[in-house]
């Protein structure tokens, strides 16, 4: 068996106590002062330490909201003075897209490197906007392979970045053209440019280091290329700024889309044919046309950038990445040129499941940004943008620790990707690209099942 890609994880406990969800408080007076207070028999041993914590820790409220919420003490209290409450700070975390649950689960993964597991079924809404209105399929019998416990040991998550030949041709037994350069990365995720509010301290450096450690790539602004540039993709916001010298050692560069981007791309390719030149374009209602144009012009890689919530730009009625990527992928397939270009989707990839779903919708891989910041304990509180003090002091984060947290998150994402691929019976993630046959969309299921029974829905459904 060949060496298998593996992301080594090890615990990286939080520097600051995470914002918890539930806590137990006295909500009435009249405590009987029981010697054997029910809180002392907490199954998790949580409240046995409470008195010590009161003395030693400044953030007592941070401590009490780490409760698991089993309610046993609330229900056993002699006087019934205990109650369970939801931490108001928890409710304020994130926003409508990066929900408190997403932030907590990202922290857990960054700390442990493990897949989040829980019991008693799913408790969320039936469906929702965007990625929450699709399910991935599974197969009862067919597996990627019969070897191993789950058949997942042989699943490949590698993807290629670059252009592939539409077909091979031979003359006198020899190929008539050599295949273009491809970059193979072991997991279909790259790290996007660190958003502006987080460009401080060691964060950018840590993101690059983490990418390097697990064989992925990080996009960095073209004017901030660090010395060790093996795993970086310089991004030039103005295509003209891209260095045209052949000694640019980066295996791949990225140019922001502009009217003359194709000529700059061609010029770069002439100087350095082995360098992959990607174009980064905002996702808009016209993206499918732009994707066809750029591909026909020979662009090898296109990154479509959505807003942080995965919505397209320049639209009064923006659609989610789910629908826009399907449209782009479909347009390229209809033109017969889909295999000639690598599509990267960025913006709104908040969870491992989003990466898999974006690929099902047509992307070859995804670029992530905000989840990496959340992995570093960011609370998305926006204090820094208002000039206030960062509650987790991100500017002074140690690079070693930051790298460990990001690597842990990717380790957990990797294992979740394997779970989904294994369930779908797909042996490599390359085959998942645009494979909507391995998914189920809310609007299709509604139409095919309830639509037959109840006619027309009142609302527009889908993303």
């Amino acid at each position: 068996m060949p060496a298998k890609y593996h992301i080594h994880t090890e615990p990286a406990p939080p520097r600051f106590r995470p914002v918890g969800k539930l806590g137990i408080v006295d909500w009435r007076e009249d405590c009987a002062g029981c010697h054997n207070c029910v809180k002392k028999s907490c199954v998790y041993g949580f409240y046995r330490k409470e008195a010590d914590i009161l003395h030693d820790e400044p953030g007592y409220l941070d401590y009490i909201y780490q409760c698991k919420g089993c309610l046993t003490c609330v229900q056993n209290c002699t006087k019934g003075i205990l109650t369970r409450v939801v931490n108001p700070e928890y409710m304020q975390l994130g926003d409508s897209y990066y929900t408190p649950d997403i932030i907590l689960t990202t922290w857990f993964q960054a700390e442990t490197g493990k897949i989040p597991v829980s019991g008693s079924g799913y408790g969320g809404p039936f469906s929702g906007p965007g990625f929450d209105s699709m399910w991935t399929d599974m197969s009862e019998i067919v597996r990627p392979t019969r070897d191993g416990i789950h058949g997942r040991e042989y699943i490949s998550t590698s993807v290629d970045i670059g252009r592939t030949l539409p077909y091979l041709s031979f003359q006198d037994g020899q190929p008539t053209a050599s295949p273009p350069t491809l970059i193979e990365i072991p997991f279909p995720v790259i790290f996007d440019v660190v958003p502006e509010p987080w460009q401080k301290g060691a964060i950018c450096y840590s993101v690059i280091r983490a990418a390097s450690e697990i064989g992925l790539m990080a996009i960095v602004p073209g004017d901030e290329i660090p010395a060790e540039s093996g795993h970086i993709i310089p991004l030039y916001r103005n295509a003209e700024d891209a260095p045209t010298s052949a000694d640019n050692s980066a295996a791949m560069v990225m140019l922001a889309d502009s009217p003359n981007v194709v000529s700059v791309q061609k010029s770069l390719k002439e100087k350095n044919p082995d360098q992959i030149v990607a174009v980064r374009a905002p996702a808009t209602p016209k993206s499918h046309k732009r994707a066809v144009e750029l591909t026909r012009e020979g662009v090898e890689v296109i990154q479509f950038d959505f807003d942080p919530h995965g919505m397209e730009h320049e639209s009064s009625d923006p659609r989610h990445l789910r629908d826009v990527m399907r449209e782009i992928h479909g347009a390229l397939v209809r033109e017969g040129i889909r295999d000639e270009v690598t599509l990267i989707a960025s913006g709104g990839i908040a969870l491992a499941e989003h990466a898999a779903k974006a690929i099902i919708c047509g992307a070859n891989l995804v670029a992530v940004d905000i989840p990496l910041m959340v992995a570093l304990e960011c609370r998305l509180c926006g204090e820094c943008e208002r000039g206030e003090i960062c509650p987790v002091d991100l500017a002074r984060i140690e690079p070693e620790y930051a790298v460990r947290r990001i690597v842990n998150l990717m380790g957990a994402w990797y294992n979740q990707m394997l779970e989904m691929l294994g369930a779908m019976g797909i042996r490599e993630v390359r085959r998942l690209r645009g494979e909507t046959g391995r998914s189920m969309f809310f609007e299709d299921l509604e139409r095919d099942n309830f639509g037959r029974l109840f006619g027309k829905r009142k609302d527009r459904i889908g993303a």
Partner: protein
Amino acid sequence: MNAAQAAVLSTPTEKKRPTPDYSEVSRAVRPAPSRYRNEIGKFSIHRASTCIRCRRCVEICPYGVHSSPDGDGLIVRPQDYRCIGFDCSNTEHYCIEACPQGALSLLRNPAFDTLGDCRWTGDLLAATWAMAETGRIPPSHLESEIGNSGGGFDRLYFRYPDHPPADIRREDISTEILLNKRKDTRPKIKIDVPWYGGGMSFGSTNIRALLGRSRSATAWNTFTSTGEGGYHERLIPYSDHIITQVATGLFGVREDTIQRAPIVELKYAQGAKPGLGGHLLGDKNTPEVARMREAVVGTSLFSPFPFHSVYSIEDHKKHLDWISHVNPRALLSAKVSTPADIDMVAVGVYCAGAHIVHIDGSYGGTGAAPNIAKKNIAMPIEYAINQVHRFLLGEGVRDEINVIASGGIRTPADMAKAIALGADGVVIGTAELVALGCVRCGCCESGRGCARGICTTDTELLEMVTIDWCTQRLVNMYNAWREMLIDILYRLGLDSVTALRGRTDLLGHLDYEE
């Protein structure tokens, strides 16, 4: 005073709670109060120290919130989970106003507002606890039919006629279903209620809870399933009502456990983790669990996915043939998850000779599973049921096989909707655990296991419940479920649950135009 109120009133209070005699396995409803001192309800009533023990509140409250059990004038702390809340202010028995000292105050219980989630709301949890305690339809201040998920069962509703036919009486309505519809020589097993218990393994679940489930199934002439942890010998007295599950790990699967069972269930997949294998953590693999599973103590036990002996539809047939030959009297069930082409899977199950195709939707499950799987893999059961029903009808085989649905059946209303969509019956799991006091904290796999003593093998935690208490809670819940199902059938004008199957014309959907 209605029957529910009478049952509540007859409940012993906390100070002198007699131990009921649960030695018989009977479907008789008997009060089975919460095992906790403070059951959680929607409202909280506080009695201040200005109370003069005039007993006015005891006299007027019809819900048993206030009581003075010893007759010595002492009034115990209000059993406020029974309180119906501010609606009571419109009645003549509103204790808050009746108290001459103004010593009573009514608030919404803050703990209640932290209960539950979109699918199992606080109301549904409290309603299930009420059913398990009283055996009756929950009080009307608790929403006991739908949750707040925004789709599926929570948006479906029944189109009740204005007046049910006059010739139908509740006591004549049948809730039994036949589990063998094939024209073969195997037993024509009927169950008295259109549901049975889903697989929960010994190892994942407290043996006392498993015994409670078995005894309740026996009392109600239905079934429960071993799950894949093997067939514990303490379940043998109830073997006429226990399904042996043959799952991919084949833990504890032997000829004798197959031969003992009236129904054998081949578990291909499960809704909680469709397409994924199982994993019993090493900590839960105690000596007794290891003995049952024929494994080494303390090691993590993996159930592969799928059966490594089933590569094709032909192998699936051979698999059923194997069980069929080992136990010539067993009915055969195949438990599958809900992929996009579940209809074809169901026909394959039929063609291989099964009596039951058990489709397990993606949102259910009781045991610990990766969150990514529970939320994203396979379709919700609401879609799958009618897809399977229609396809089997089209193939002309619908009346030869039972379609049993599970994975998100929380209430009798969900069950009735599933049957109206085309299922013959349902399998329940989480509802049973909630009846036993589960609060869905989701920490089944943490540390020593379930902090509520239900899903654990920890010797100290399993002492939190008794077999008799588990049995009675489930017997009560079953009775309430049956009463609520009969009420739905009566209001629809149907004389049996089998008449409801596939009656999609009786359903409406709130998100669709009329």
